């Protein structure tokens, strides 16, 4: 009977072993929770969008009027600028040299005028004297006429000398204006957000990065990109919330500002700008009051716009 028992015990043991193994391997792993709570939609229906924070007056990409060597940078990142405050200076040595020549050209012109004035006076005197002679035989008609012509020519020369002076002054002023153009000034009040140029560098006209970025950071807004497919779902005036990337604990309440009327090819927010324009987006602009935590221009946000009624 031992043998029989052995086979049965073996069977029972095998079965138990299998049951335990299969039961143990059956437990499905629960997925690990997200490290940070993902952005969630607070509304019943929503249109989600990807947004970026920007200054209310769109940032100004400062460019030079002409390419040139930068000799001095007047500002640092974060400086508050008044309108017209100098930002940086392009190399002006050539124009300064020109200015000196042009300024030097003015005194000779003035001297020429003085000289001519004296000549005119001299000839006037001569002419008057000749006219005053009553005896026609003492003065020939020829002399009188010659003096008169000489006087008229001297007068014309004076007019020309005066015009020459005006011209010299205008030339000096032109150089001055060109010189002034080499000092790049703030086109409006704002904060310097970026400085990408140093003294000694060459400022190009079509640089990929702006030489300087000027914006008003006191008032920020969010530009939310809505896929064109979802564009009809956005009602003007809908409230929205935004979450900073990686900070989903605190929502930023948004106030509707406007919808950009022109649907644009999407600019990728990943930073690589040379590709992937395959979708058009509706841009919705939202304002918000500065939250208690810091937000910066250029930060990416996840936006949820309230959607009323289902379509």
């Amino acid at each position, binding site marked *: *009977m031992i*043998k*029989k028992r052995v*086979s*049965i015990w*073996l*069977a*029972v*043991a*095998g*079965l138990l*072993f*299998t049951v335990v*193994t*299969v039961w143990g*391997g*059956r437990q499905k*792993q*629960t*997925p*690990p929770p*997200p*490290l*940070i*709570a*993902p*952005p*969630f*939609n607070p509304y*019943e*229906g*929503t*249109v*989600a*969008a*990807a947004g970026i924070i920007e200054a209310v007056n769109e940032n100004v990409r400062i460019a030079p009027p002409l390419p040139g060597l930068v000799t001095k940078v007047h500002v640092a990142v974060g400086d508050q600028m008044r309108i017209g405050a100098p930002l940086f200076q392009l190399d002006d040595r050539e124009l300064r040299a020109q200015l000196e020549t042009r300024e030097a050209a003015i005194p000779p012109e003035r001297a020429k005028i003085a000289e001519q004035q004296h000549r005119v006076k001299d000839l006037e005197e001569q002419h008057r004297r000749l006219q005053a002679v009553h005896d026609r035989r003492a003065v020939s008609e020829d002399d009188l006429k010659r003096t008169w012509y000489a006087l008229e020519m001297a007068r014309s020369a004076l007019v020309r000398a005066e015009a020459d002076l005006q011209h010299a002054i205008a030339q000096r002023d032109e150089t001055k204006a060109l010189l002034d153009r080499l000092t790049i000034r703030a086109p409006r009040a704002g904060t310097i957000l970026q400085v990408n140029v140093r003294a000694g560098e060459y400022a190009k006209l079509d640089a990929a990065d702006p030489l300087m970025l000027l914006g008003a950071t006191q008032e920020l807004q969010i530009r939310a*990109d*809505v*896929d064109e*497919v*979802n564009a009809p*779902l956005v009602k003007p005036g809908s409230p929205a919330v935004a979450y900073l*990337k*990686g900070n*989903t604990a605190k929502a930023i309440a948004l106030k509707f500002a406007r919808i950009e009327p022109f649907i644009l090819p*999407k600019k*990728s*927010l*990943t930073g*690589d700008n040379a*590709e*992937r324009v*395959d*979708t058009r*987006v509706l841009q919705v602009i939202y304002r918000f009051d500065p939250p208690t935590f810091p937000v910066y221009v250029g930060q990416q946000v*996840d936006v*949820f716009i309230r*959607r009323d009624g*289902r379509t």
Partner: protein
Amino acid sequence: MNYIALKMLYGDRTKYLMLLCGLSFSVMLTVQQGSIFWGLMRWSHSGVTNINAPVWVTDPNINQVEEVKPLADTAVTRVRSVEGVDWAVPLYKGVLRARLADGNYQQISLVGLDAATLLGRPAIVREGRIENLRAPDAVALDQWAVDRLGGPQKIQLGTVFEINDHKAIVAAIVHTQKSFQNIPFVYTTYERALTYSPRERRKLSYIVAKPVAGVTPEQLARRIAAETGLGAFTAEEFGWKTIVWMLKNTGIGVNFGTTILLGFIVGMAIAGLTFYLFTVENLKQFGALKAMGTGTGTLAQMILLQSFTVGLTGYGIGVGLATLFGRLTARGGTLPFVETWPLLALVFVALLGICALASMISIRKLAKLEPAIVFRG
């Protein structure tokens, strides 16, 4: 009577052992092959199970998880706009080449996770911290990548290597399920995965999403598909889609199916025939019992008892052996071996069927049996 039946069964030790062996090994072969087959199928969609997300969104014409058809970036916001979505994050998936300083290289399956939430990250982290993925150039390798790239001596936390000519630093070593193609998984953040991957017009491979409480993944998947026109699948559906694709496009199903079927048929045929022979040899005893006035019903009951006893014993030993095999060889996930209830139940039912069939033939024989046989020969 039952006692006599069992005594008869156990009395003929050789026949009993033969019966037991035939049944046990047939069951073992079937269960073992079935489990390996199912293990391979599990590996085939490890791309889905390793991410462990409830709903997958991608192109509607997708065949299987490794055949990525990328979407436009804005698809994430379109999915988030669907009612019932708790969260939806982008996921990059693509096969790239990793290269070590010594020139050793290896194909890897790069997985880009949403940087803020790291949703879809592996549950088991063996070394390092998965949060370190946010550091510059950080990637997490799975245990297979460590093996393939040169073993734990060469690949440690902080090892620098190249992915598609970009610098990558090992920030964590994680545990994943092996894939069918045996391409190891490397995890990084979504944005970094985009810089690693070659230039393409569209790059978003998948969007993984979770329904809010009260909405099932199935409902959400249907809703996303209807509202966005994208393909949306639950993890199970996507897994099955991949399995079906595998079965259709590789010979693996036919191959394993034949082995399993043949193993089963051969084993069961031997067992059935042996049992029949066993009955035939014991015809005298049955005849004597019949002569003593035992009814055919009782005899049938005896036969059934004998056949089910030996069947169940064989089943127990067989599955035990198969499990032991699995335990010993598939330790650490190097061999696909996944035993499941449906397989065990299927084999059990088939075994009972064979036992019943074998008994039926024997019972027919007994029914026609004349008690006079005892006195002949």
